C-alpha cells in the first residue's frame, strides 16, 4: 500500500515537471487530467475516514477534475485558437530548473512541520506544497490566459490533496461547495478567455496592460 502511494506521489511530482516544461497547451491539459487521476487514487488510499460518503466525494472530485474541467479547457483552447505558449515570460529550461528549486524548497520547508499522521508518507506534504507552488509559478510565468487557468487548477489540486490527506473530516456539504466553486471559476474563466480572444485577437495577458497607475 505504502509503496503504491509513493509511486503515485512520484507521478504527481513528475507531472508537475511536465507542466513546467511543456509548451503545448494540449499536453498541459493532459498532464492536469493525469494529475487529477493520481490525486483521486491518493485520496482513495490515504484518507483517514474511509466510508461511503468519502468515496462518493472522491469519485465526484475525479469526475470534475479529470473530466469536466479539462473539457472546459479544451473548449476554451479551441475557441481561442491557441495551441502553444510561444513566448513565456520564463523559458522552459529555466522553468524546470526553478521547479527543481521549488521541490527542494518544499522538502526543506516541510521538514520542521509536525503533521499529525496516522499513515506515514513522508513525501506527501512536500508533494502537495510543490504542486501548489508549481501552480502559482505557472500563473506568474506564463502569458496565455489559458495556461494561467491551468496553473490555477494545478494549485487547487495541490490544496485538495492536502485537504484529503490531512484535513480530517470536511463535511460533504463543504466539499461539494468547494468543488462547485472551482468548477464555476474555471467556467467563468473559460468564457472570459473567449471574450479576450474576441476583443484582442489573442489571449496573451501581458498585453492586458491598459490599466495601471
Amino acid at each position, binding site marked *: 500500500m505504502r509503496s503504491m502511494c509513493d509511486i503515485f506521489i512520484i507521478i504527481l511530482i513528475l507531472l508537475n515537471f511536465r507542466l513546467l516544461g511543456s509548451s503545448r497547451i494540449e499536453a498541459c491539459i493532459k498532464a492536469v487530467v493525469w494529475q487529477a487521476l493520481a490525486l483521486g487514487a491518493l485520496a482513495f488510499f490515504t484518507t483517514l475516514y474511509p466510508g461511503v460518503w468519502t468515496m462518493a466525494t472522491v469519485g465526484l472530485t475525479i469526475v470534475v477534475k479529470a473530466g469536466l474541467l479539462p473539457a472546459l479547457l479544451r473548449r476554451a483552447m479551441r475557441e481561442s485558437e491557441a495551441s502553444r505558449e510561444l513566448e513565456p515570460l520564463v523559458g522552459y529550461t529555466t522553468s524546470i530548473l526553478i521547479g527543481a528549486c521549488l521541490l527542494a524548497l518544499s522538502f526543506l520547508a516541510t521538514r520542521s512541520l*509536525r503533521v499529525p499522521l496516522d499513515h506515514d508518507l513522508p513525501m506527501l506534504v512536500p508533494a502537495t506544497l510543490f504542486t*501548489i507552488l508549481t501552480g502559482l509559478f505557472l500563473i506568474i510565468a506564463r502569458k496565455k490566459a489559458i495556461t494561467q487557468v491551468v496553473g*490555477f487548477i494545478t494549485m487547487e489540486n495541490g490544496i485538495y490533496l*492536502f*485537504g484529503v490527506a490531512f484535513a*480530517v473530516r470536511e*463535511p460533504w456539504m463543504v466539499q461539494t461547495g468547494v468543488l462547485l466553486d472551482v468548477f464555476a*471559476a474555471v467556467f467563468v474563466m473559460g468564457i*472570459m478567455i473567449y471574450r479576450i480572444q474576441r476583443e484582442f485577437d489573442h489571449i496573451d495577458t501581458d498585453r492586458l496592460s491598459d*490599466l495601471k497607475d
Partner: protein
Amino acid sequence: MIWALIALPTLCGLSAFFIRSDVWRRTLLVGTASVHFALVVCAWFLALPLTSAAGWLALDAASLLVLSISSGLFLAASLYAIGYLKDFQRAPIRDYLEGFEFSNRPERIFIGCLLLFLAAMTGVAVSIHLGLLWVAVEATTLASAPLIYYHRHHRSLEAAWKYLLICSVGIALALLGNFFMSVAVSAGADREINLLTSELIKHARQLSPAWLKASFLLMLVGYGTKMGLAPMHTWLPDAHSESPSLVSALLSGALLNCAFLAIARMHGILDAAGMGDFSRQMLLLFGLISMVWAAMLMISQTDYKRLLAYSSVEHMGVMAVGMGVGATSSVMLHAVNHSLAKASLFLVAGNILAAFRSKSIQDVEGIFRFLPLSGILWIAGFLAITGIPPFGLFISELLILKAALAAGRWLAAVGYLVALGIAFAAIAWGFMQMAFGQKAQSRLQAPVEESFRSVAVPLVLIGGVLVLGVWIPDPLWRFFIAAAEALTGGGF
C-alpha cells in the same frame, strides 16, 4: 429566516436570467432588494444569535451588522440602477476615452448576477463554519466578475480578468488556511471539533499553536486579497474604476466588509487561543502598509474613480489598524460610516461620469455650475470620507487613534495620522479642482438636468454618515459592542 435571506435573492437571481420584459426584471430587482432589506430589519428585533442548519449558519451581531450594510446598500444601488439602466440602454455607446463604440452586456445577465451577488454576500455574513464561509466568499467573486465586465470593452474585460484571477488565487490560499486549521484541530485537540467559529473559540486553547498561526497568515493573505489590503490590492483600483458606478459602490461598500468579517472571525479565534497579540500585530502591519501605500498612490491619481478606489484601500487599512489596536467596536462603526460615504461617492461619481463622459479629474471642472445638486453631494462626500467633523468618519477615526495611543502604539499612531493627512491632501486637491475649477472650455455648456433618483439615493446615504457623526443612539452603540463581542465568541 436565515434560509429565506439566502434563498430569496438566489431564486430571484436565477429567474432574472429568464425574464424577457425589462420592466418586470427591474421590478424584480427592486422588489427583491426591498424584501431582503425588510427581512434584515426584522432580524434587528429578534433575539440574537439565530442559528439554523445545525448551527452552521448563524446570525450573530457581527453578521447582522455586515448583512445590514450589504442589504441596505444593495437596496440603494438597485434604486439607482433603474435610472442607470434606462439611460444606458441605447446601444452602441461611444467610449469617451478612445472613441470606439461598444455595447453593454444583456441586462438580464447584469440583474441576475447582481441578485446572486447579494445572495453570496448574505452567505458570507451568516456562515460561521469556516468551510462554508470560504465557499460563500468565492461565490461573491464569481457572481461579481460578470458585473465588472458590464460595458463590453477591452478595459473592463482586463479589469474583470485581473479581479477573477487574483481573487481566485488569493482565496485558494485561504482554502489552504482552512485545511491548516483542520490540522491544528487534529494535532492539538483530543476530540473532534467542527470548524464552526463558535466551537473553535470554545476549544481554542487546545489547538496546535504553530498550525493555527500558519492558518491565520494564509487566511489573512487570502481574504486580505479580497478585502483590498496592500500589497494584495492590485485588482481593486482597476475593478472599481472600470465597473459601472453602482457596482463600484457595492464592491467598495459591501463586498470589502464581507471579506473583513472573515478575517475578523479568524482574529477572534486566535484571540481566544491566547495568540491575540500575534494576530493584532499582523493586522496592524498590513493595515499600516495599506494606508501608507494607498495614500502615496492617491497623490498621483488623475482618474477620480481610481482615487475613490484607493481611498477604499486606505479605509480598509484603517479598519485593520483598528482591529490591530483592539478597538473592535469602533471598527464596526467605521465600517458602517465608510460604506455609506463611499457608496454615496461612487453613485455621485456615476452621475458626474454620465454628464461629463470622462473619468479624468482634468476634464471635469465646475461640477457646481453644471450639476449643482451632485456638486453639493460631491463636496459633502469629500468632507465625510476625509473624516472632517461633523461626519461620522471623524468619530470612528478619532476613536481608533485614541485606542492606538492607549495601547501605547505611538509609532503606529504617527503613521496612521500621516497617511490620513496625505490622503486628505490628495482627495482635497482632486475634488476641489472638480468642484470649483473654472476652465474656459468645458465639456458641457449648460447645466444638466439631474433626475430625482440619481440625487436622492446618495443624499440618503451621506445623510446617514452625518447622523452617525452627530448622534449615535445608545442602542446602536450597544449593538456595535455586541458585534465586537460576537467576533470573540461572546455571542454564543
